[in-house]
């Protein structure tokens, strides 16, 4: 397959696009176009496409430019809002991760104390047959001894405070977002 271009192609193309083909061009160029395969193909294809373009452009039903501008403005605005909200999504993820970490730490630390609790509860159950009808006071004193140690209070207070901070932040963010 040879790709050698005919030297007349550019001129014939220009004449077709100007609408000067075939009547307003040199007769020798018309003769050449009939004998040259590349030029005859060019004339055949280009005239067909230019006619098709003219027909299709007249058939187009166009919406107004203002409507497209309005839709573009809406899309730009939505994209801008999404850009603004992206850092807050990170904050939400961080908050959730911190909450999970606190919960996990709480479970791990309390697991070691679980044995003391179990012993206290076991003692309370064993004493039940010998106790009176209101034996709950004994339950409170046996378990609260474990809970009311200074390190025990801190162990409960710290996660609760952190939890409040995180939830408070989230509530503030959601309220602001709604606003």
């Amino acid at each position, binding site marked *: *397959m040879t790709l050698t271009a005919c030297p007349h192609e550019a001129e014939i*193309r220009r004449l077709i696009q100007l609408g000067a083909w075939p009547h307003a061009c040199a007769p020798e160029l018309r003769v050449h176009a009939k004998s040259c395969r590349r030029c005859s193909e060019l004339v055949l294809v280009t005239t067909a496409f230019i006619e098709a373009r003219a027909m299709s452009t007249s058939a*187009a039903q*166009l919406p107004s430019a203002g409507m497209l501008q309005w839709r*573009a403005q809406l899309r730009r605005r939505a*994209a801008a809002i999404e850009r603004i909200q992206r850092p807050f999504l990170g904050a939400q993820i961080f908050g959730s991760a911190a909450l999970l970490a606190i919960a996990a730490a709480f479970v791990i630390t309390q697991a070691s104390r679980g044995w003391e609790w179990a012993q206290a509860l076991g003692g309370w159950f064993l004493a039940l047959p010998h106790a009176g009808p209101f034996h709950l006071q004994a339950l409170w004193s046996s378990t609260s001894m474990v809970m009311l140690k200074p390190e025990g209070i801190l162990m409960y207070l710290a996660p609760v405070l952190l939890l409040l901070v995180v939830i408070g932040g989230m509530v503030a963010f959601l309220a602001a977002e709604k606003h």
Partner: protein
Amino acid sequence: MFWASILPNAVPVEALSLGDAASQRMDGDAFAGFYQRSARPLWAYLARVSGDQSLADDLMQESYIRFLCAARPPRLEDGEVASRRYLFRIATNLMRDHWRRPHSSSIEELPEELFATQPNQSDSQALLSPALRLMKPRERQLLWLAHAEGYSHGEIAEITGLASASIRLLLFRARRKIASHLREQALRPTSTELNCEVLRREL
């Protein structure tokens, strides 16, 4: 403002939507003029290459919206030719994405009625529509851009994303193929001619 108190560097929505890119964008009147001059050729390109007028409507609107929302649109000083090329590039990419989507019908699966000859078509149009149906989508794109829009090989490369060197060969092959289809169509008798022949035999 609430966000400003939380994030000192936060930018208001209005400012973001009219940022640096917007300063390079066309204003309303300039866009309206550009739209009037470029919408019909763009629609013709989309309709002829896809063979689906309603798809052409959708893709044309989406092309202009993306053009207006572009982060780095062509600069005003580049002129309308650059903007038009950019627009055709968006439309070409949208058409390609449409064909790549699994749920959408491929151009090869489109019903023949979409390419069927209309009664008010001229002779060359009656030949072109069936010939276009026999071409691949990429070939239709290249042929339309070269012969209907008159773009150079470099400009077609920019619009389609193909290498400029390969455009020449692809276009050469596509032109030869559609020319042979057009000649074959021209040699075939039309339905009117066939009816006349049948009537002549019956008489």
